[in-house]
């Protein structure tokens, strides 16, 4: 009566390396033969951001994975050890653990396992926020990774996830004297940023992550970055990135091989789970996948249009 497989979805466990992770696989429709080379497809692997389960907020990853699979890109959403349904101990300070590449080795191993198990030509790794950090480290560590899609990445060590603040906290920051001081301090930080000389990373930069990021960008790996719009109240989404525009900093000397595409989605929030965020990511990501890893679905559509 209970099954682990539906028409285009399957619940699987990856554990070739002895570390079990629970996952949901989204298969391509039967009439789709592949993406990339003639019969070997490019897959998309979704990572957890912090402790959010593999569906992501508002089940947005389910939506994207289903959509990508329908376009010829088999997708896998995994729960890293200790997160979602996967067993394991979770670090007390999960943000620091992730910032220090704590999940990098296991994520890279699972990219490889996903690729081998489904006979893929390669894998695009999708990471949101802290998941983007793990994606960058993992992409640097495995040759099966052929591309990156990351949303609202941050490159500082003290991540400030403003949307995680509860309404009570936001209200407190608005109403209290201490909150007023904090807001003024933030304004001064913004000012200080303007005075910073070009090319120098801020003191709170995650240098190891930035180094990996630079290498990936310079290597010519196709990378698609989405940023959410600028919060009107707190000034700028760069608050999450420690007031320094790391993306701009890196693209300024990325070189000719760089294949970095950047999109800012105004009007969505940090989770990208609303209708606008979901649809925009889907549209741009699918176009990007078709461009870098052409699928037969796209080619068929192109023929129909012609």
């Amino acid at each position, binding site marked *: 009566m209970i099954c682990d497989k539906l028409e285009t979805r399957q619940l699987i466990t990856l554990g070739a390396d002895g570390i079990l992770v629970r996952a949901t696989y989204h298969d391509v429709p039967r009439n789709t033969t592949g993406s990339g080379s003639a019969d070997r497809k490019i897959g998309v692997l979704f990572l957890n951001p912090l402790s959010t389960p593999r569906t992501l*907020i508002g089940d947005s990853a389910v939506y994207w994975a289903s959509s990508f699979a329908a376009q010829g890109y088999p997708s896998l959403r995994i729960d890293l050890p200790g997160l979602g349904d996967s067993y394991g101990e*979770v670090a*007390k300070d999960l943000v620091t653990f992730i910032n220090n590449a704590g999940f990098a080795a296991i994520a890279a191993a699972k990219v490889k396992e996903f690729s081998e198990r489904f006979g893929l030509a390669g894998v695009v790794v999708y990471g949101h926020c802290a998941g983007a950090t793990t994606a960058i480290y993992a992409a640097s560590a495995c040759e099966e990774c052929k591309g990156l899609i990351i949303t609202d990445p941050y490159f500082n060590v003290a991540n400030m996830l403003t*949307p995680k603040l509860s309404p009570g906290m936001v209200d407190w920051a608005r109403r209290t004297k201490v909150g007023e001081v904090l807001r003024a301090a933030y304004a001064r930080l913004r000012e200080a940023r303007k005075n910073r000389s070009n090319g120098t990373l801020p003191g709170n930069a995650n240098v190891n992550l930035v180094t990996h990021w630079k290498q990936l960008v310079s290597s010519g790996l196709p990378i698609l970055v989405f940023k959410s719009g600028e919060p009107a109240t707190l000034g700028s989404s760069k608050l999450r990135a420690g007031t320094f525009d790391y993306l701009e900093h890196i693209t300024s000397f990325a070189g000719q091989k760089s294949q970095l595409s950047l999109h800012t989605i105004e009007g969505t929030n940090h989770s990208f789970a609303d209708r606008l965020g979901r649809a925009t990511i889907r549209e741009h990501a699918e176009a990007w996948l078709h461009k870098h890893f052409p699928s037969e679905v796209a080619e068929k559509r192109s023929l129909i249009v012609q």
Partner: protein
Amino acid sequence: MVEFTQVQQYPESVLAERAGYFPVPGAHLYTVLHEVEAPLARVLLIGPFASERHTSYRSWLQWARYLAARRIEVVRFDYRGVGESTGVFTDMSFRSWVDDIERLSAWLREREENAPLIMHGLEMGGLLAAKAFHNGEADALVLWSAPVNANKVLRSTLQRWIGPQQLLKREEDRRPPSHYFRLLDEGQSVEVDGYEWTPELWRESLSFGLPGAMVPPNDTAASYRRPVRIVQLGKSAAPLVLGGLLHGFEESKDFSWLFAPNYEWIASSLGIPLEAA
């Protein structure tokens, strides 16, 4: 620092966790069966509302593992149209979710090795569990922070969601929660946390409440002649329930202070022996 570089030793109860799709009309529910041999009892865990799923997920799972390690078989699941389950959220109603719970409990009762069935609901899940229990399902009921009615859940969810949203908007574009309540009253849909709330769901929530016998000061257990435990959880239970200012940042919290007495209550009220994990 946690290391994932060596082969982990998995407890037997973790290896016996079976994820699957349970068929319901027009959709499949994502279920995880924490299977145990010769179970002393079975518990159907009925979780919080869609938006709270991701914050409570780990703690809810910890509770399932805690019980399974003590020979109590557990099933947890995602509501139709939510999480890993299929189905369309906008087509859902509280009634349809109760129907799904009754289907799951019927399936649990048909499993080999007869064992008493307990329904355990958290927040909105408490409301749904109470309805199913009221309809005759299950031998015992545990409610954690069940609201008096579903509208309270929707209102508090929307109020929590609106704060961070305001940060993104200019002063002139900001709207108070009452604005969204009015839209729903007027028959418009509102998108909250990635879920589109329909006016039908909103209207149903107004009349979808705890059965009268479960509202204080009534003696619920006496009314149903089956064991019932109703617990109101405080902020210390975050992120299992929302309430703490920085909910979601407490990824590895110890809940033994909550789990132990609830497990002991289940064992004593059903007359089953206490098992060491």
